[in-house]
């Protein structure tokens, strides 16, 4: 039986060392808030991170934790989960850690569908190294390493996850604590890789990157919350919706178009095409979708691995002495 926890049970004795005002605080707090509800005893939870501001998170969690090296957390978590499928394993990464140096591991862990909860803190900047552009930074952005503008076309985290056919893909924001909590819980409940992109404000090196989406005044018009089976409606008065025109989404007014014409979200669609289409909706042309883009079931890597072990064990009794003797053997006797 899992003990009844409170947030405090998940708070370690280490001082939290992020810049005051950093969005990471909220994400940490929501993680600590939802963990009591995932039904796992504390010692069966492990947090694995790479390197970056965000990746300091495991130090603050009173669970098992491993602050590893830059970009490699998905691989380390794969090893851990492979040898102990019973653990609830969380990967904490940043837009640089996860999509720059670690992009390939992320891709491969998702296609393998290792049962991990991957939380990518996207602040569109390298925080820890003091402000260079990241793979999600906007084109043209001036930073320390791009004084006359970034010439890299930004990457879409959700798009990469979908290309890898991740079985759970969602997006949420540091400032929407409720939605963040819901999303984390949904991720935890999902069997298979859960990929959650969290928009996170770095108030030191990229302040306000998501303000149009996160601030009260503009949020309702600039975001649309995806709910499985529900039409895409948004706006302060929920007066707008998204309709599909062929393969092209368009914003319509509910005063002009009937709700029944709206695009209805289907997170459980077998193929990721709808999710891919939604991922293309970007601010300011469209409201930015938040919530679960995709949630499908497919076998988890560690289960398949364990399954092969179990099956093989039944098929062939392990016998070391017999294995040693495989192939041709011969006896040497003492010569007279």
């Amino acid at each position, binding site marked *: 039986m899992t003990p009844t926890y409170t947030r405090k049970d998940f708070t*370690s004795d*280490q001082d939290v060392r992020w810049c005051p005002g950093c969005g990471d605080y909220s994400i940490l707090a929501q993680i600590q808030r939802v963990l009591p509800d995932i039904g796992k*005893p*504390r*010692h*069966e939870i*492990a947090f*694995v991170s790479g*390197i970056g501001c965000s990746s300091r998170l*495991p*130090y603050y*969690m*009173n*669970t*098992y*934790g*491993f*602050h*590893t*090296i830059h970009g*490699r957390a998905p*691989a*380390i*978590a*794969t*090893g*851990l*989960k*492979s*040898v*102990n499928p*019973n*653990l609830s394993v969380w990967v904490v990464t940043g837009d640089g850690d996860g999509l720059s140096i670690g992009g*390939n*591991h992320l*891709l*491969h862990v998702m296609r393998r569908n290792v049962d991990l909860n991957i939380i990518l803190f996207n602040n569109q900047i390298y925080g820890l190294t003091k402000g260079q552009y990241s793979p999600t930074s906007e084109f043209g952005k001036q930073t320390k390493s791009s004084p006359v503008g970034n010439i890299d076309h930004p990457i879409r985290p959700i798009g990469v996850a979908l290309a890898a056919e991740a079985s759970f893909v969602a997006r949420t924001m540091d400032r929407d604590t409720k939605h963040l909590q819901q999303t984390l819980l949904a991720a935890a409940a999902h069997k298979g890789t859960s990929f959650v992109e969290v928009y996170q404000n770095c108030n030191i090196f990229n302040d306000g990157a998501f303000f149009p989406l996160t601030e009260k005044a503009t949020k309702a018009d600039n975001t649309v919350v995806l709910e499985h089976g529900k039409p895409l409606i948004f706006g302060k008065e929920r007066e707008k919706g998204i309709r599909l025109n062929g393969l092209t989404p368009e914003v319509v007014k509910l005063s002009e178009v009937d709700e029944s014409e709206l695009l209805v979200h289907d997170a459980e669609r077998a193929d990721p095409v709808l999710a891919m289409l939604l991922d293309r909706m970007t601010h300011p042309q469209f409201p930015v979708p938040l919530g679960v883009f995709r949630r499908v079931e497919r076998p988890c890597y560690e289960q398949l*691995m*364990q399954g*092969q*072990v179990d099956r*093989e*064990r039944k*098929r062939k*009794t*392990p016998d*070391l*002495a017999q*294995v*040693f*003797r*495989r*192939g*041709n*053997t*011969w*006896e*040497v*006797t003492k*010569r007279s």
Partner: protein
Amino acid sequence: MTTASSTTTKSGDKRELDRVTIRFAGDSGDGMQLVGSHFTTTSAVIGNDVQTLPDFPAEIRAPAGSLPGVSAFQISFAAEDIFTPGDRPDVLVAMNPAALKANLSELPRGATIIVNDDEFNKANLKKAAYEENPLDTDALDGFTVHRVPITSMTTRALEDSDLTAQQKARCKNFFALGLMYWLFDRPLDSTLDMINEKFATRATLREANVAVLKAGHAYGETTEMFHETFHVPPAELEPGLYRNITGNAATALGFLAASQQAGTPLFYGSYPITPASDVLHELARFKNFGVKTFQAEDEISAVCATVGAAWGGALALTGTSGPGLALKGEAVGMAVMVELPMVIINVQRGGPSTGLPTKTEQADLLQAIYGRNGESPLCIVAPCTPSDCFTMAIEAFRIAVKHMTPVIYLSDGYLGNGAEPWKIPDVASLPAIKVAYATQPGEGEEFLPYKRDEWLARPWAIPGTEGLEHRIGTLEKQDLTGNVSYDPANHQHMTDLRAAKIERIADDIPPLEAFGGDSGELAVVGWGGTYGALRSAVTRAQRRGAKVSHIHLRHLNPMPKNTGELLSRFDKVLVAELNCGQLRALLRAKFLIDCAGLNKVAGQPFRVSEVEAKIDELCAGEKN
């Protein structure tokens, strides 16, 4: 046949020999590795000591008949303990002109050459860049050449078979094998058994191979081409049950055994790379033992997953070859920092860079020791023969788990692909590996993840254990607690502790022994796969009266405690290795001993004669 001490006694038309070295050479598609391994098993089964050396020329099949396409397999079998597959073949079987050309320079004068006469046609001669047929010129003067129409004899033997012409042609290696069996007085049974087993359900192929094998044997017996046959009596081997084993297979079995002895499942994270891939292939077949193999997207993922598995309490193993080890450097440093037990296999190959992937070399020793940022000490072991791969695999995990450290296991292409008879150990006699995960501390006691035992090892506290929740990481950590610490004195302290922990392993490994006197004129020092060549050369020199000993390191970091002292008892020290002097540099730096070097970086193992010549040069006074 050229063995210095061979005693030859006539017994009917059979000549008795102490040792023979044969090389089968042909096109990559000619099945030379297969007949080589048949010959090996047969020779081993009748009691010879055997050593083998496969030689794959390149990674991809080159065009048939071309020089780069030549594949060879050398086997040495003897009536005495031998340590190498022989310097130069006494007999060369050349299945085509390219095979002859590629190997001729390796033959000592007087050697026997058996060629497949049918293949010495215009087209093939051209592919081998022969202007004239060497069989018709004086190019082979000084050798005993036998021209055997192997291809046509094979076809004839299969006249009645339903095989296609191509399939028939593929059988010709068995003709050569049968002929060699006759020439060297070996029984066919073992090969016949294997053919029957392999083609149990494919009668046509089975019958064809049997027919051709027998035809080859009969050819020897009936033609008058060979005036005598040879007999190599059984060697005086330690009694027991034997099988032939390659170093890579022995490595896999050793790690499997380590897992069984530890009662802890093995996790193997790897990315395919020549010549290490076979370890992955072998281990993937042991899922019934609980082995989990993870073919990663690259070497970095492979080592990182292995670190994760180590954290999770598995016997965590990763494996690669040269360039892969370079990629793993950063993550191995992580393992050093978090002090988790794991083993990193490196089957060394020719470098630098992609280098010579299928060739052997020992040039990754210093990479293993220093190939990471910062002061990052770890343990290094190196097996010295194919069989020893088994032993040292267990040793590697024994150390890793007891001393909570990554261990690099340095094999090489020569060991990995080479085979020798392996005395199958009794499972009950294998060393134990004690795995003791940390458990919940007593009432009022605090769990300290970086508190150390008498070996300076920290506890192995695995996720899932109640009450031990804690954080580890790659930033410098505070002594005892493991929390992040930027304190200068702590950093010095932890740096010293990490170094001392590795040094202390020296108290836990056997002292270094000298083969030969414990002091003398010359110590020949080696490590890894050169063991056989060095042991043979030293033995021969000793027989000639030289005061020379052979000292072979299997623990390279730390070295056995008596290393410096032992070496200092010799007038001269020669460090022989297949690199530009890496162990030599370590010994000079550590012990300020003026070691000489015998170094070779040619993708090939030492020849015994090369080592002997160097010994003679250094022991000039003792020369007989």
